[in-house]
């Protein structure tokens, strides 16, 4: 046990920062121009949530499910696994979250209210601004974090959804919370200031989940 405690975070990282960021560049090059579709869906989600909140849960859950399944296959399995043998396990976990969200969308019941809407929009904003965070941290344009395309902002956006969900909030939030911790720890070990984005996202998400306030009553469409 003492041996395991002697390991530092950096001992668990198998690659250099340059290799990590180049992996993102290769990924984006391989999937271009699909990023446009993901960005369009990301822009549409908050609009749907504001205009039609009672139907939003189903649509958002379905879109998030597609994002998680995409990241599982296209990012973790096809790309990240080339430099990190743990990425195959990450792919399984991301696929599980995608299936959970898909199940949520399929069994959706019209909610009476949606709590934490303001907090959710804030979290979603953080996820959407992930590219800006990447640039400020020194990444090149070809290496950016993108909502729906790469794991960290996808996890934060899902936390934004989970905190407003009227059912299974904690179940929907567990994997995104864990991933924010893993993603943040990875960036921390690589000495990147970006580490704060997923870590603060996790803290904010957890805080909103545990908040004990009456949810805002839905008024649109009634």
């Amino acid at each position, binding site marked *: 046990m003492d041996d395991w405690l002697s390991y530092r975070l950096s001992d668990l990282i*198998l690659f*250099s920062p340059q290799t990590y960021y180049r992996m993102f560049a290769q990924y984006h090059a391989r999937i271009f121009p699909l990023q446009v579709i993901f960005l369009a869906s990301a822009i549409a989600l908050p609009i749907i949530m504001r205009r039609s909140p009672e139907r939003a849960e189903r649509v958002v859950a379905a879109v998030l499910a597609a994002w998680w399944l995409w990241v599982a296959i296209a990012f973790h399995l096809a790309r990240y696994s*080339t430099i*990190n*043998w743990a990425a195959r396990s990450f792919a399984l976990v991301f696929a599980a979250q995608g299936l959970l969200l898909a199940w949520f969308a399929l069994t959706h019941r019209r909610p009476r209210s949606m709590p934490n809407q303001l907090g959710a929009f804030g979290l979603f904003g953080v996820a959407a601004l992930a590219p800006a965070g990447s640039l400020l941290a020194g990444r090149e344009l070809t290496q950016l974090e993108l909502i729906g395309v790469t794991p960290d902002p996808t996890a934060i956006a899902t936390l934004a959804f989970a905190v407003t969900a009227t059912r299974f909030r904690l179940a929907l939030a567990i994997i995104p919370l864990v991933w924010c911790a893993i993603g943040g720890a990875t960036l921390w070990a690589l000495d990147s200031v970006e580490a704060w984005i997923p870590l603060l996202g996790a803290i904010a998400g957890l805080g909103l989940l545990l908040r004990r306030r009456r949810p805002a009553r839905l008024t649109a469409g009634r």
Partner: protein
Amino acid sequence: MTDDLMGRRELLRLTLGAGFMRVATPFLPQTGSSIVARVIHSSQESIPVIGLGSWITFNVGDDRAARAACAQVIRAFVDGGGRMIDSSPMYGSSQAVIGDAIASLPDPRRVFSADKVWTSRADGRSQIEETRRLWRVAKLDLVQVHNLLGWEDHLPVLLEMKRAGRIRYVGITTSEGRRHADIERLLRQHQLDFVQLTYNAADREVESRLLPLAADRGTAVIVNRPFRQGALVNAAARQPLPSFAREIDCTTWAQLLLKFIVSHPAVTCVIPATSSVAHVRENLASGRGPMPDERLRQRIAAVVQSL
């Protein structure tokens, strides 16, 4: 065998004692600008003291440009007289990158392949075979039990594979001072060809027991983390190189740090990792020229402790 072991212990005592102005290589004389070589006791095969590690540096996935750069590093290493390259299944794509690079060399047989078995499964044979396949060699030279993981199962298998001629040498590894008591026990209980451990001017714990024991037992020593993953060199770079570095033809801190390590007569090979052709040449240069005597070794250690 007893005489041979006593000879090694006595030689170790003499070469570490005071009064020697230069340490001639305990086992092989230098010629011209060739890298100092040490003998693997179990076979009397000689191996240059400067090797090449692959933790992080060669784990570049399928990035073609990065792989080509790694191949250049390996080419420069072999062209400069280096032989031992060390890797592990734990190091991601490093093994495949090394295999591709070696295959492009004019004479791949010059490379001494040192790899590891790293699995909690009882039988590591399939992993070792996969490693051999990735290296694209007919036979791995050295297979080590990585960080002693599952040594109870893997060590007998490795010894059997050696007897069957499927590998040439057997070893065990640890790093950063972990499990030294287990390493000591295994060195005493088994006749091992190699032990790999951490040793540098800041991490000298192994000088008191493990290095003398390895010499006593006729076990060759591979040294990992010579620069504490770059931390020692980065800390040292803030200070001017000591003037006494000139006495042993060192022009950089990295060379001074490496000469400290390889001048210990129990050390067979040190394996600094790098992704830079310039650094691999700089590292190889530290295997040439005069080596520090005990007085100079203590001065190097004192300077490093003060960083």
